[in-house]
């Protein structure tokens, strides 16, 4: 086991030496990988910010349950018990018909409502489901419609559907972009490693004659590809961070002009780690394919 660590340690050192031995090439490769990855990375971050902005502007989606006018206190209590038992709900509140009338009167409809002899409004529950999944909202609405003394269920999820559709479209676009650019990065690493193998051909031949196994020869190339990818990931992270810093003030000013407070947020620790790990994986993959393809010819 110690030998395994020793051999990997040597391979890492060898890969670092090769990276340091060609600083310009290393820098250019890292920039290519980094700038390419910053596009899907930035896109993902933009979608994340749009989603949180939309949540802030529109508030949480709700379902309104309007009861039958004949519903009594016992019916209200029964529905409340069922709502309490429903795990997909975040919260609910009961709006008695008198309170609803007062709200309308306070809202400027006092003159209109004053002409009425009786309160025409029903008792109601306003329910806030957990999450933002429109399918869950639909299911809850269908369930509640079937409850006794429930006259009408109003699902306030049209905007959620539209938002989800837009965000879904955006995510698909970001995924496609990430896939295409990821493929390009694998090709870039593939070619870099191909050139490395060509320049190291003599060392490979000599090592084989001296008893080097294929894993021994492959290891430094894998590490080279992975480290190059990781460097590219760090450049991507830096590029996204710079973009956020540059856009933060104009976006905040724009939000303020609409009377809102909004701060553009940069990538958090999980997102940052994901970018670097993804870039490292792409580098390793490109190296692995290249080594498999070209080492047999060396």
């Amino acid at each position, binding site marked *: 086991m110690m*030998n395994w660590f*020793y*051999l990997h340690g*040597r391979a890492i050192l060898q890969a670092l030496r090769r990276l340091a031995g060609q600083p310009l090439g290393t820098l250019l490769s890292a920039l290519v990988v980094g700038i390419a990855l910053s596009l899907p990375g930035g896109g993902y971050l933009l979608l994340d910010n749009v989603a949180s902005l939309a949540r802030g502007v529109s508030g949480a989606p709700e379902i309104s349950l309007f009861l039958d006018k004949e519903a009594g206190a016992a019916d209200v209590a029964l529905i409340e018990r069922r709502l309490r038992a429903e795990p997909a709900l975040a919260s609910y509140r009961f709006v008695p018909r008198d309170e609803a009338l007062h709200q309308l009167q306070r809202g400027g409809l006092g003159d209109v409502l004053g002409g009425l002899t009786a309160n025409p409004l029903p008792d109601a529950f306003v329910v806030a489901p957990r999450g933002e999944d429109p399918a869950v909202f639909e299911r809850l609405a269908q369930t509640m419609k079937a409850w006794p003394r429930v006259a009408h269920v109003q699902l306030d999820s049209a905007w959620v559907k539209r938002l989800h559709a837009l965000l879904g479209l955006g995510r698909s676009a970001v995924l496609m972009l990430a896939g295409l650019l990821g493929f390009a990065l694998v090709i870039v690493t593939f070619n870099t490693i191909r050139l490395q193998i060509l320049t190291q051909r*003599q*060392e490979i*031949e*000599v*090592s*084989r*004659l*001296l*008893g*080097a*196994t*294929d894993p*021994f020869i492959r290891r430094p190339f894998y590490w080279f590809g992975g480290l190059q990818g990781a460097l590219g990931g760090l450049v991507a992270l830096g590029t996204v961070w710079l973009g956020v810093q540059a856009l933060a003030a104009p976006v905040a000013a724009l939000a303020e002009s609409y009377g809102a407070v909004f701060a553009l947020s940069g990538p958090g620790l999980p997102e940052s780690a994901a970018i670097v790990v993804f870039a490292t994986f792409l580098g390793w993959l490109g190296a692995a394919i290249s080594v498999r393809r070209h080492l047999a010819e060396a």
Partner: protein
Amino acid sequence: MIVFDQVVKRYPGGYTALAGVSFEIRHGELVVLSGHSGAGKSTLMKLIPVMERPTSGTVRINGQDVSHLPRRAIPYLRRNLGLVLQESRLLYDRSVFDNVMLPLVITGHPPRDAARRVAAALERVGLDGRGKERPAGLSGGEQQRVAIARAIVNRPSILIADEPTAHLDPDYAHDIADLFRSFNEAGVTVLVSTHDASLFAASRPRRLVLGKGLLVGDDVAVEVAA
């Protein structure tokens, strides 16, 4: 022990380098393989570390049939052989020390022990204190000594050298021949191919002579062409 049994090597295109060669080299022997250019010496030498495979027949090294050795097992065979080739095949971007160290790095030797072994190997070939130099700064004979140090650093039981004196001046060539003799005296089985068997005459080695892909002479009974 090295055993060749009816070994034939035919290259694509029909050229037959070896046409049925059989011999046996016992542990601790010093054997000089000679013959004119194209006699099949290099092909024979390449069959031992499985740089080539025979078309038919069997090659055995220490009892193991290497003719059909799986590819993944070849490195482990080579680690037990000391190989010296016609060109020194040194890495010119590394120091002499690092070149000699390479077989020990491959086998994952602890660095401190490896450094001791490298120093001992360089001393053995008369290059002590030259470890920090680059091979390009050494003479042809010194470069070949580095290659020999690299071949012996793993303490192999068999040392194989293909024309190790081919590009050397006579003085250097005699020095290299003396080195091989000294390794043999230390118990290492040595097989050296050369077009100039007289270099080793003083050691009274066993001599194998190849001609047109066949073994035409074995031991002192055959007069070696100088």
